[in-house]
């Protein structure tokens, strides 16, 4: 995904992944706040999420992201500090800002134009919350790389001694400073070192450093933690006093410090180097006395320049450190290339096939079920299943991120149609295959919009119906019998079946005199071109109907169903396979070929009697199914395995449900089995035959093609259309 040669690009990519995680916790936190959480950690989490995004964004120069995050964070900080009481209106704004932040993150990631105007609009509203506080709005310039409060461009230590020797004949007073510095014991508690400070100071110009050893006691009375030395530094530099103070910023209050112009210094103080002093000897570490390690050192030595500077931690530290692999993000998560997982999934697929083949040949060898080989095989089968499940779980991800996107959809769509809607999510930790999650976003978005727009009544109508003005949309996910069930339900008015039926008749989707059950009427919503909204709203009326939702769900091997109660609401249920790597298939025989059909499209199986089939014209048949007619297709003919036949009595027929809600009957010769098969994609080098979706390897080692019935029938083309309309009218 990234250029592996550019570590910066990799870190940037990983930053955006981290952003997604942070945005997720931001959403969670805001949700908790909105639900009235009193836990101070909640606002901390919210604040930190925005803060961390800002921090990373700054590192990559993503200015707009930094600008927005910073000012958003400033407002959140006020809440954190209890200076701002956030009400539900403020929460709404926080949510909107979080949404916008996520837009900015994505725009930054994808190099899209920044929605600056929207940033400004939101920031204005956000900062309005602060009232007067907003006056001291912090500018983004604050986040220019400030570098370090330690000044870093130092001359080498070697340079220091040169400096000292440097001719200092004239000292134009305006260009020089005399700095006196005497550390106190506390200075060492912060890990600071006079040496470091003096070096920093020297970096400001040419310096002469004199160390005052006057206070140094004899060795036997030397207290290791007491600093005895002080320094006088004559600095030739055009810098101002503030720059010098900056050097000592972190030791302010931890040392005696005086900064003066030479003239003033002489007058005001008579503390020029007295007694023994070491000039510029600081080039070698000067300050052994108070080094913290001295405490552990039985024989603290007086300033014996070179050695005594013993750094707090001796050289052996690097090796001494056990290489405790505490890498970033290593806590409980390992990031793995998707490719590697795919490879593992494929290998496990092979293993499953291999196991099936082994079972079959051992079974055929007529071994006793109690033999060691058969017992071993049983164990092998169990392990294979476990491995398969575990590997599939690697690809699984919680639906949480998907659900969070939906909460945004609810916020935006409810605002667009002026309804007050609350989204309640359940089962966010339910895990589903990554690909399924990705491909579920669009259909789910449409369903949620649909619920908000069509499902829920207007606040007035809700009032009349004796319901609370705020509508509720429930979004739930759960594992049920080896599949994932995702439900979107609203507490709206339910489906107006009379109206739906009427619309379907008017649009010619169903014959006027055909009696339909409630369930059948509800399912009319999934027909292409169906739309009940009498007026096209800004939300759902985009030419995308529930039929598209249904198609998307089916392409994932899923099913969608609808349940509605007048006055109480509507529930859409999506049932999905846990993975796209295995398929519940029906193994059938057609003209001597073994084929696999996805089980989820098979509605029922029939055995044809003499009266069941009617010929429309040679080669075009329909089959009577419970009073209706369904077009009949001979799979053997369609796949080119055999010539067309005129009679189908006794044939086995699979009644399948097509994506558009219509049905078709497929003639096959025999049903072998229903079983899970491992989906093997067909290489691109194969000719792409219509109707062939993939392949699998069966237990006996035989390769079988997996069919896509809808595709086969679509390829048949001309048969449908007018003739089908005719059959429906029969």
């Amino acid at each position, binding site marked *: 995904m990234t250029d592996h040669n550019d*570590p*910066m690009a*990799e*870190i940037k990519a*990983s*930053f955006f992944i*981290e952003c997604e995680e942070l945005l997720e916790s931001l959403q969670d936190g805001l949700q908790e706040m909105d639900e009235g959480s009193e836990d101070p*950690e909640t606002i*901390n*989490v919210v*604040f*930190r999420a925005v*803060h*961390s995004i*800002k*921090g*990373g964004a*700054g*590192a990559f*120069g993503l200015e707009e992201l930094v600008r927005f995050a910073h000012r958003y964070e400033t407002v959140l900080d006020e809440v954190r500090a209890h200076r701002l009481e956030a009400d539900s209106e403020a929460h709404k704004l926080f949510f909107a800002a979080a949404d916008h932040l996520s837009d900015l993150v994505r725009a930054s990631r994808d190099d899209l134009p920044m929605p600056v105007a929207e940033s400004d609009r939101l920031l204005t509203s956000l900062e309005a919350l602060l009232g007067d506080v907003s006056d001291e709005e912090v500018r983004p310039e*604050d*986040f220019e*790389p*400030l*570098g*370090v*409060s*330690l000044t*870093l*461009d*130092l001359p080498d230590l070697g340079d220091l001694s040169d400096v000292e020797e440097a001719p200092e004949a004239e000292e134009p007073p305006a260009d020089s400073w005399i700095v006196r510095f005497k550390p106190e014991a506390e200075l*060492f*508690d*912060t*890990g*600071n*070192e006079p040496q*470091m400070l003096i*070096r920093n100071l020297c970096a400001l110009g040419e310096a002469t450093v004199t160390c005052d050893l006057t206070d140094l006691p004899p060795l036997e009375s030397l207290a290791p933690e007491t600093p005895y030395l002080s320094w006088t530094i004559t600095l030739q530099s055009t810098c101002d006093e503030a720059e010098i103070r900056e050097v000592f*910023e*972190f030791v302010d209050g931890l040392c005696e410090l005086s900064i003066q112009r030479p003239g003033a210094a002489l007058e005001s103080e008579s503390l020029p180097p007295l007694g023994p002093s070491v000039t510029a000897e600081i080039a070698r570490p000067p300050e052994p006395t108070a*080094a*913290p*390690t001295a*405490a*552990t050192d039985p024989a603290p030595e007086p300033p014996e320049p070179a050695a005594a500077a013993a*750094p*707090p*931690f001796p050289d052996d*530290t*690097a090796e*001494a*450190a*056990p290489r*405790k692999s*505490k*890498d*970033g*993000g290593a*806590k409980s998560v390992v990031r793995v290339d998707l490719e590697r997982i795919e490879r593992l999934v494929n290998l496990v697929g092979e293993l499953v096939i291999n196991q099936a083949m082994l079972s079959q040949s051992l079974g055929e060898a007529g071994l006793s079920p109690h033999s060691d080989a058969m017992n071993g095989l049983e164990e092998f089968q169990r392990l294979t299943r476990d491995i398969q499940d575990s590997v599939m779980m690697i690809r699984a991800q919680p639906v949480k991120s998907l659900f969070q996107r939906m909460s945004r959809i609810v916020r935006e769509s409810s605002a667009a149609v002026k309804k007050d809607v609350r989204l309640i999510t359940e089962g966010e930790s339910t895990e589903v295959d990554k690909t399924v999650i990705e491909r579920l976003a669009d259909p789910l978005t449409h369903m949620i919009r649909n619920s908000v727009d069509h499902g829920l009544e207007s606040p007035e109508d809700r009032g009349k119906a004796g319901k609370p003005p705020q509508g509720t949309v429930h979004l739930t996910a759960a594992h049920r019998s080896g599949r994932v069930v995702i439900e979107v339900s609203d507490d709206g008015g339910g489906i107006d079946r009379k109206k739906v039926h009427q619309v379907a008749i008017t649009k010619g989707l169903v014959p006027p005199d055909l009696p339909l059950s409630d369930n059948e009427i509800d399912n009319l919503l999934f027909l292409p071109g169906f739309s009940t909204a009498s007026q096209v709203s800004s939300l759902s009326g985009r030419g995308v109907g529930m039929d598209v939702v249904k198609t998307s769900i089916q392409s994932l091997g899923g099913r969608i169903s609808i349940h509605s109660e007048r006055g109480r609401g509507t529930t859409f249920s999506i049932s999905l396979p846990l993975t796209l790597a295995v398929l519940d298939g029906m193994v059938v025989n057609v003209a001597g070929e073994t084929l696999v059909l996805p089980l989820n499209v098979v509605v029922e199986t029939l055995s044809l009697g003499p009266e069941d089939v009617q010929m429309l014209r040679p080669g075009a048949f329909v089959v009577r199914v419970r009073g209706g007619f369904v077009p009949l297709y001979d799979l053997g003919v369609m796949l080119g395995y055999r010539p067309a036949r005129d009679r189908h009595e006794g044939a086995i027929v699979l009644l399948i449900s097509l994506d558009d809600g219509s049905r078709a009957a497929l003639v096959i010769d025999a049903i072998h089995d229903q079983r899970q098969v491992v989906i093997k994609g067909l290489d691109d080098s194969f000719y792409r035959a219509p109707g062939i979706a993939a392949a699998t390897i069966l237990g006996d080692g035989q390769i079988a093609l997996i069919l896509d019935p809808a595709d086969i029938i679509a390829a048949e083309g001309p048969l449908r259309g007018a003739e089908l309309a005719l059959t429906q009218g029969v």
Partner: protein
Amino acid sequence: MSLTVLAVDDSRTMRDMIRMALLPAGFTVHVAEDGVDGLEVLDGIEPDAIITDINMPRMDGFGFIDAVRAQERRRGVPILVLTTESAPEMKMRARNAGATGWIVKPFDPTKLVKALQMVAG
């Protein structure tokens, strides 16, 4: 000069950035995700310097610095605070806790290296 550095930051991106800045300079870099984690990692290493963020879950930078300084043998380890905070009162708090220096994010990698070499060198 090869230094061993412990970097404590809850942002993976920051940890990566720090690592990227320091590894080419020949530093040995250990990382931790927050104060609690930092103390745990510190247990097994002898860093020449520590870099820490302030805003972190579980134990923030102030608490972490406090805890490090409370260990007798860690009293002299230079600790640089690396954060987006630049308010004087925050700096004061950090210093009172025992921080050695302050670097404001975003940081310049070469400056970070120099700063570390200076405080720990």
